């Protein structure tokens, strides 16, 4: 460095000079732009500034549409009128608000409160009232000149085939809450999906709002649209649902509390999922007031609950499938085991009764499933052992969330001696006895049972329930797609699968499930009658009725699981509902196809 300080300094000066020239070029660019704006285009801008009346208006993006697997729409949009305030343009705030309050019959304090939450010079519209009637719109338009800063926008709003159609699954769309705006993802006044698929896919469905810049005259009347940014519509979602099956399931369950899950055992696709009673989707879209909301939340029948995955029930005799599978595979049970059922079973000081007064007589494993004999299974359960039963129950996907993306899924509960010991309580033989007929601490959701039945139907594959096939952007490109995903496998030997399927087929053809019998379609299934409380009386309608099934028995294409809360006996209450659904799926489709060829 001491070698040539002169040369070094010269190189340094050269580099600084180069940078100076770059910066100078930058200044020249700015001056050039100023010359363009002020001198060349100055007159135009001067004129614009003199009648500077530029208004900005949002143009709401239509929300994406949800389709069923055959392309039928599950929801649609319709235009609706919204009255908004634009704070920056409101010259005499108090008088405008007072007038608007009278015109729309909205309390003045409410309007003031809405405005107080945003900056006074904000350009973003504050949505005051949505889904206005035509008369209201006419009244506001009539007074337009006295209402600077008040605009009527056309916003697309959701419409549904029927007001409760697939309510829990689709979910409702509602204005963001204060809490959600604080998280910073949404703007005040945005409409977003709050539950169900609308919420899950909100980012896709929402689209992007556009806007237009319009020039208005001194009275605020639009003169011309200066620039328009088209809104980008939300993406379209193709679900795995079948609208026809969904409708049939809802119709079949109508009037009862409970849930139906219809699944394709070949792919894990959810074809229908209902929960009853349902809430009315329409009521959420507009201006749902506080009282109506509280009434829904406090309703003793819990209409907001999605019973298919958010309610847990004892599986009752449906669980005998698991006990039989565990026993056969582990070798602790064989199809040749026989026992005599006299209607009760004693273990120590306890007596466990069969549901059939007087007993079923001679029973083997197959007939015990077909007749749903409890006494046989009390003994079988003790032979198989609680730990093995619990292990197979978990293998069938019980006791853990199924992985469906809808929020709030309950995991259910599979008790086991180890678990109970950890809670500091001993496991008794009576616990095993209770568990072997699906009672006791055991809890499952209808969705879990559907997944289990699908595994029985397809030979052991546990699917992640699939609701969404793909999401397509408005321009037709694919935003998201989901393939069927296997999340577990139940390893049973083919002989065991064959035995189970044969037994389940007989449940419908000659056993407790005969109410699900349908000419032309062979249904296989298992009934269940689950005590909702200890020592409940099914005759007084306190038991939950189950029917878990698939069809056609030889080549299963659909799984139908029906649960009726406090419905009574599974075979009498749940099985006929499943039958109605199968009829809609298989027979009415055939009828429709014939009708189609004739016309």
């Amino acid at each position, binding site marked *: *460095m001491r070698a040539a300080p002169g040369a070094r300094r010269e190189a340094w000066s050269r580099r600084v000079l180069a940078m100076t020239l770059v*910066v100078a070029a*930058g200044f020249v660019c700015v001056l050039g732009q*100023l010359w363009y704006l002020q001198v060349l285009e100055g007159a135009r801008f*001067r004129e614009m*500034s003199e009648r500077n009346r530029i208004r900005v208006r949002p143009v709401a993006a239509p929300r994406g549409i949800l389709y069923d697997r055959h392309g039928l729409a599950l929801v649609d949009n319709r235009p609706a009128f919204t009255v908004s305030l634009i704070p920056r343009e409101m010259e005499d705030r108090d008088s405008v608000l007072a007038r608007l309050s009278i015109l729309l019959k909205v309390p003045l304090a409410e309007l003031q409160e809405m405005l107080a939450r945003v900056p006074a010079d904000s350009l973003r519209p504050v949505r005051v009232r949505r889904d206005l009637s035509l008369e209201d719109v006419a009244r506001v338009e009539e007074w337009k000149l006295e209402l600077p800063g008040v605009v009527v926008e056309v916003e697309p709003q959701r419409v549904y085939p029927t007001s409760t159609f697939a309510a829990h699954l689709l979910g409702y769309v509602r204005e963001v809450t204060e809490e959600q705006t604080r998280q910073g993802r949404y703007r005040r006044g945005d409409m977003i999906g709050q539950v169900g698929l609308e919420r899950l896919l909100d980012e896709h469905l929402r689209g992007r709002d556009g806007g237009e810049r319009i020039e208005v005259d001194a009275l605020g009347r639009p003169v011309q649209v200066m620039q328009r940014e088209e809104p980008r519509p939300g993406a379209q979602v193709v679900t795995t649902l079948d609208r026809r099956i969904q409708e049939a399931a809802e119709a079949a369950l109508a009037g009862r509390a409970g849930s139906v899950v219809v699944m394709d055992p070949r792919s894990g696709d959810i074809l229908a999922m209902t929960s009853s009673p349902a809430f009315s989707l329409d009521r959420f879209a507009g201006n749902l007031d506080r009282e109506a909301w509280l009434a829904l939340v406090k309703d003793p029948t819990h209409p907001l609950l999605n019973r298919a995955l958010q309610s847990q029930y004892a599986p009752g005799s449906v669980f005998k499938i698991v006990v039989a599978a565990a026993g056969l595979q582990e070798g602790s049970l064989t199809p040749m085991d026989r026992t005599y059922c006299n209607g009760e079973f004693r273990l120590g000081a306890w007596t466990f009764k069969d549901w059939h007064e007087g007993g079923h007589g001679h029973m083997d494993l197959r007939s015990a499933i077909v007749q749903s004999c409890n006494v046989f299974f009390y003994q079988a359960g003790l032979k198989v052992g609680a730990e093995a039963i619990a292990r197979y129950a978990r293998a069938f996907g019980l006791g853990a969330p199924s992985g469906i993306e809808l929020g709030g899924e309950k995991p259910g509960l599979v008790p086991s001696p180890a678990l109970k010991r950890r809670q500091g309580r001993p496991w008794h033989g009576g616990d095993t006895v209770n568990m072997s007929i699906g009672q006791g601490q055991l809890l499952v959701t209808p969705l879990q049972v559907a997944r289990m039945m699908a595994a029985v139907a397809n030979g052991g594959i546990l699917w992640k329930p699939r609701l969404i096939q793909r999401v397509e952007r408005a321009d037709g490109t694919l935003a998201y797609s989901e393939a069927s995903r296997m999340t577990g496998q139940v390893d049973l030997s083919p002989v065991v699968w064959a035995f189970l399927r044969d037994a389940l087929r007989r449940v419908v053809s000659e056993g407790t499930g005969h109410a699900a019998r349908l000419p032309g379609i062979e249904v296989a299934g298992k009934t269940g009658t689950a005590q909702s409380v200890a020592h409940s009386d099914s005759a007084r309608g306190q038991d939950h009725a189950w029917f878990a099934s698939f069809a056609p028995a030889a080549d299963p294409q659909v799984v139908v699981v029906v649960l009726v809360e406090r419905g009574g006996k599974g075979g009498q209450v749940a099985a006929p509902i499943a039958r109605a659904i199968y009829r809609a799926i298989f027979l009415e489709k055939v009828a429709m196809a014939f009708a189609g060829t004739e016309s």
Partner: protein
Amino acid sequence: MIFRIDRRLLQNVDWTLLAAAGAIVTLSILSLWSLAWGGGSGIALRQLWWVGVGLGALVVVASLDYRTLVRAAPVLYVAGLGLLVAVFTLGRTVSGARRWLHVGPVTVQPSELFKLIFVLALAWALTSRWARPLSRATLGWTAGLAAVPFLLVVRQPDLGTAVVLLPVLAAVLLGVGLRLKVLAGFALGAVAAMPLGWLLLRAYQRERLLVYLDPFRDPLGTAYNVIQAKIAIGSGQLLGKGVSGATQSRLAFLPERHTDFIFAVFAEMWGFVGCLVLILAYGLLVLRGFEIAAGAREPRGRLVALGVTALFATQTLINLGMVTGLLPVVGIPLPFMSYGGSSMVVSLMALGLLLSVRMRQFQ
């Protein structure tokens, strides 16, 4: 004594530089005053008060030997980072971004102060004994020095400040002899890494970034500012509308008119001719800065002067570019002109640093 003022030092005060900055500050006060014309002049008075504070800071910085400051750079750098981190935990959120810290009655913007510390830290890192000759290790280390605050400031999110740090880094690295080709390589690498960062962002964060780059995606927000600023500037025409005629600015069509968009106010009031004067003042300021850098005799002085000048030039050009619609809108104040205590005081301190280098040129 550090504060002993040598007569030799006083002889070397760069009056041209001071005059250019003084002219800009005067125009700033006048613009703020005229904005409030007819209704309170609180903002102009407060700005005047900040100029007073800043002049005090300028005298202190100029009387210190800049070499002392460069030696203290590591401590200042760590302290500055500490302040940036403090903004995350204690900071006040204004329109979605955390940039301010409350200190008693005033709010300060640590990222402003950090710009200056950054220049000192670069000079320190590139002139230490082990840093020469320029090696790959030194380059990597310097890049790390820049990356940490860059990421912090991006997270705030204060894209403006982050965008300023990069040209300053580039200018200083070119100054120490980095080949343009190597720098271009770095830049390409950074551009190539961007898609990776893109994947890590969530959808709404992407949207926010896209609005930054293309304001017309958000027609109610930034795009409105841009069009109103253009109308304000253009309507000034050749000679301006004067104070009372400046309807765009005074009737509040123009957002951020005291701070980032103050140039549009000035342009509306004084027209192309006024702008020419203002830009000449900035040109003079930057030109003198580069001259001081070129004339400095030892490496630390050179780099400090070059860094400070690059800082002025970058902020000025980006601000003018965005207000006139040449560049996307990022939040950068116009040095010596925009309303804001932190920006004014730090700009005057930077000026003090330049003076300090110039005054000790012949020692």
